[in-house]
């Protein structure tokens, strides 16, 4: 019964989305305030119904209701509770339901936190958001219904794919979707601004916090997914330039570019056309990612052609939303007045360069991901575009970005002084060079690792150059600097931490060149030395889990005879799906990790092992956490607080009329 009410709630959510996609926009066009005023409450109700539908599906999964096709295909009664819950979105139908849940969550958030927004802007934003919601609700109900019942319920389900039975599944997709779908808000803002023709710094001020929220979630989601792959796939790789990963990287790059250029639009009223375009682009790339992942086009063009129903539907959504917004953009962009002037060497100029490089990176990933598909569809020829291509093209684009980042932060708005900025980051440059020399002398090793580590040190220190100057400028004492710190906007600290986070991640990436690896068949009692640590395989014993059986290799890590850590790498066998997966044993020592995975037992009682020493590897993800932390600091800046936005919004919205 709950399942049926959930299904019904989803249909109601669709009806509400249809209402909201028409009424408020009609209201804003005709100036009918009553029609505009319904948008927030309809959005909230839409969220409530979608949330109920999601709850109903979760209930079916938790209670192992095997009369539901979705539960049978993806659950098992013996599965631990956490995976029963996370299994809700561990499949196509459920993950699409999560997608619209997040979509309606953002609509509800806009409805709740936008009292200060101009009425027509809010009506239009919620209207556009409802178009997207309606399209995807229709997609779920017509092609991917999670509530489909079976005529005959089996006794047991097929279980969730073992690779997905991991805490990562509980965190990664929701975070990623918050980021992915969160960008729908920036898209709705852009479309609404284009519809109403009001594109000014007020728009930038409202859109920036939402972009930040989406960007923080996207950053965390990608990092989380990367760490999940790292520990679960058993060979210590964390980024594969897989089309599915690229699908999440593209919106991230676009959102990063957007964050930087909304800053210019907000502060200087410049780059309006570009900001609107990026806002559309960021969500378009999210939609593209959804299409790539959900249509099956990635596995093969032919697999897509054999069952194209879902793919065609999403493709249609893609075409309508991207095409529609671009047409709107083309109609309106010509009439936009260019805002504030700036010299090429200025904060604005640096941010333009940042946008150029980030967009080129994004285009590179885009072309690299879609080229094989396009080539196969056009000529039938199959090629692969893998890590070597991306490393060759992405690297040269990112290095100048790293080098310019600290300098750009030190440039003044309007007209900057390059020599002065370089002087301010002098300490960072010196530290970077010193780090390079020291590492070259100490480790020698791959040139790329040495150079990139130096750049990373420069970025980390340089990111704080601007804040440092603003605190200690003019030889201020610590007490005075503390006073100044209170007065400094949190955005300044946020930017410093986020940029330093990039440097920290780079340091982690650079250090992979100094890793050590041993691939060896070990017998219990044997010891292997990897990267200065002695790894002893104590014994291999079988153990029973809730819905799997595993072979555990109890292992001790020693350094200079002292026990540092004990790890238990294992291989697990899941009988329901007759599948196995390995569970790596990882011990974090400082920022480095000893990583060990085991494979087959050989005939003579030895077990195949793969042991790595990965120096500073944890920094890759700590850097991402720092970026998100910086984003959070920026978000808490007082300029985003509602009252300030309201006053500024009223003042600015009012002034043109006064001037006329």
């Amino acid at each position, binding site marked *: 019964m709950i399942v049926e009410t959930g299904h019904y709630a989803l249909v109601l959510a669709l009806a509400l989305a249809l209402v909201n996609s028409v009424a408020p926009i009609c209201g804003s066009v005709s100036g009918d305030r009553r029609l505009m005023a319904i948008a927030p409450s309809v959005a909230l109700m839409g969220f409530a119904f979608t949330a109920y539908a999601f709850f109903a599906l979760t209930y079916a999964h938790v209670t192992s209701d095997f009369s539901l096709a979705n539960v049978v295909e993806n659950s098992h009664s013996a599965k631990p509770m956490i995976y029963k819950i996370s299994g809700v979105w561990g499949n196509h139908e459920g993950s699409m339901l999560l997608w619209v849940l997040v979509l309606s969550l953002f609509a509800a958030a806009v409805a709740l936190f936008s009292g200060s927004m101009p009425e027509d802007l809010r009506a239009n934003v919620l209207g556009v958001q409802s178009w997207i919601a309606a399209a995807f609700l229709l997609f779920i109900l017509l092609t991917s219904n999670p509530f489909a019942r079976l005529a005959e319920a089996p006794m047991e389900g097929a279980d969730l794919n073992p690779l997905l039975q991991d805490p990562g599944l509980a965190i990664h997709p929701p975070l990623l979707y918050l980021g992915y779908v969160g960008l729908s808000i920036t898209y709705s803002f852009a479309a609404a601004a284009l519809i109403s023709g009001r594109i000014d710094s007020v728009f930038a001020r409202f859109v920036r916090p939402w972009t930040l929220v989406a960007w923080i979630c996207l950053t965390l989601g990608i990092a989380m997914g990367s760490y999940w792959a790292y520990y679960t796939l058993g*060979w210590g790789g964390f980024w594969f*330039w897989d089309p599915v990963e690229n699908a999440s990287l593209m919106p991230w790059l676009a959102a990063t570019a957007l964050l930087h250029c909304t800053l210019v639009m907000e502060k200087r009223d410049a780059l309006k056309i570009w900001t609107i375009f990026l806002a559309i682009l960021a969500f378009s790339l999210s939609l593209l990612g959804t299409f790539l992942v959900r249509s099956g086009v990635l596995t093969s063009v032919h697999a897509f052609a054999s069952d194209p129903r879902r793919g065609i539907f999403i493709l249609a959504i893609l075409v309508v939303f991207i095409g529609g917004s671009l047409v709107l953009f083309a109609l309106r962009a010509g009439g936009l007045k*260019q805002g504030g002037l700036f010299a090429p060497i200025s904060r604005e100029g640096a941010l333009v360069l940042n946008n150029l490089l980030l967009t080129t990176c994004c285009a590179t990933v885009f072309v690299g991901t879609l080229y094989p598909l396009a080539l196969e569809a056009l000529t039938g020829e199959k*090629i*692969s575009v893998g890590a070597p291509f991306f490393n060759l093209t992405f690297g040269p684009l990112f290095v100048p970005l790293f080098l310019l980042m600290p300098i750009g932060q030190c440039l003044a708005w309007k007209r900057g002084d390059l020599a002065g900025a370089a002087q301010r980051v002098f300490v960072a440059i010196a530290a970077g060079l010193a780090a390079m020399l020291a590492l070259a002398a100490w480790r020698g090793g791959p040139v790329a690792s040495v150079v990139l580590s130096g750049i990373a040190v420069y970025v980390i220190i340089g990111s704080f150059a601007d804040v440092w100057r603003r605190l200690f400028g003019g030889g201020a004492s610590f007490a005075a600097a503390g006073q100044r710190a209170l007065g400094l906007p949190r955005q300044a600290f946020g930017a410093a931490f986020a940029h330093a986070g990039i440097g920290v991640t780079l340091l982690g990436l650079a250090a992979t060149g100094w890793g050590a690896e041993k*691939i060896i068949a070990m017998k219990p009692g044997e010891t292997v030395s990897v990267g200065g640590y002695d790894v002893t395989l104590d014994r291999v014993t079988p153990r029973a889990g809730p819905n799997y059986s595993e072979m555990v290799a109890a292992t001790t890590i020693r350094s200079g005879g002292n026990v540092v850590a004990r790890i238990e790498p294992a291989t697990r066998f899941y009988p329901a799906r007759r599948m196995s997966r390995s569970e790596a044993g990882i011990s974090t020592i400082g920022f480095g990790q000893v990583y060990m995975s085991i494979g087959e037992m050989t005939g003579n009682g030895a077990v195949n092992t793969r042991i790595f020493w990965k120096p500073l590897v944890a920094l890759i993800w700590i850097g991402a956490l720092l970026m998100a932390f910086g984003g959070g600091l920026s978000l808490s800046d007082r300029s985003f607080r509602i009252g300030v936005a309201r006053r500024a919004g009223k003042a600015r919205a009012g002034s043109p009329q006064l001037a006329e």
Partner: protein
Amino acid sequence: MMLMMTIFRALALAGLVLLSWPAMAVQPDEILPDARLEARARALSAQLRCMVCQNESIDDSEASLAKDLRILVRERLQAGDSDEQVRSYLVQRYGDFILLKPPFKLETLALWGAPFLVLLCGGIAIVFASRRRIRDAAPRLSESERARLEALLGADKSPEGADKSPEP
């Protein structure tokens, strides 16, 4: 989206349900006794695609096809092939699909050229946009206003004078 990636990987694995134990990527018995040859084999394998996987190199893949290819690569190296010979040997049999780094050819021109093209076009667009911005912003003062402004500036050298809008 790592989620879907793992699903794809799992699907690739599902084809190999016969294995009840996860095979690891590179296994101890594959490793060549000659360390230099082995290092070359590893570097080479990282550039070769496991054809049944999603963008995974044969060095990373657990699929049995990848294992066969890894052994093949090592056999060729032991037979005295150069890296290039091994690559062309594999391309002859499996096509360009096996190369994770696509070769420079007519068909891949747009692929390799894309980053440079985008950077170039973007750069040119920025230069033009900034010129237009300056041009659009420039003629705010009429000739008589400019003359008056210059007269005022001549009278008072303070730079603030430039900011004050001249009287009509």
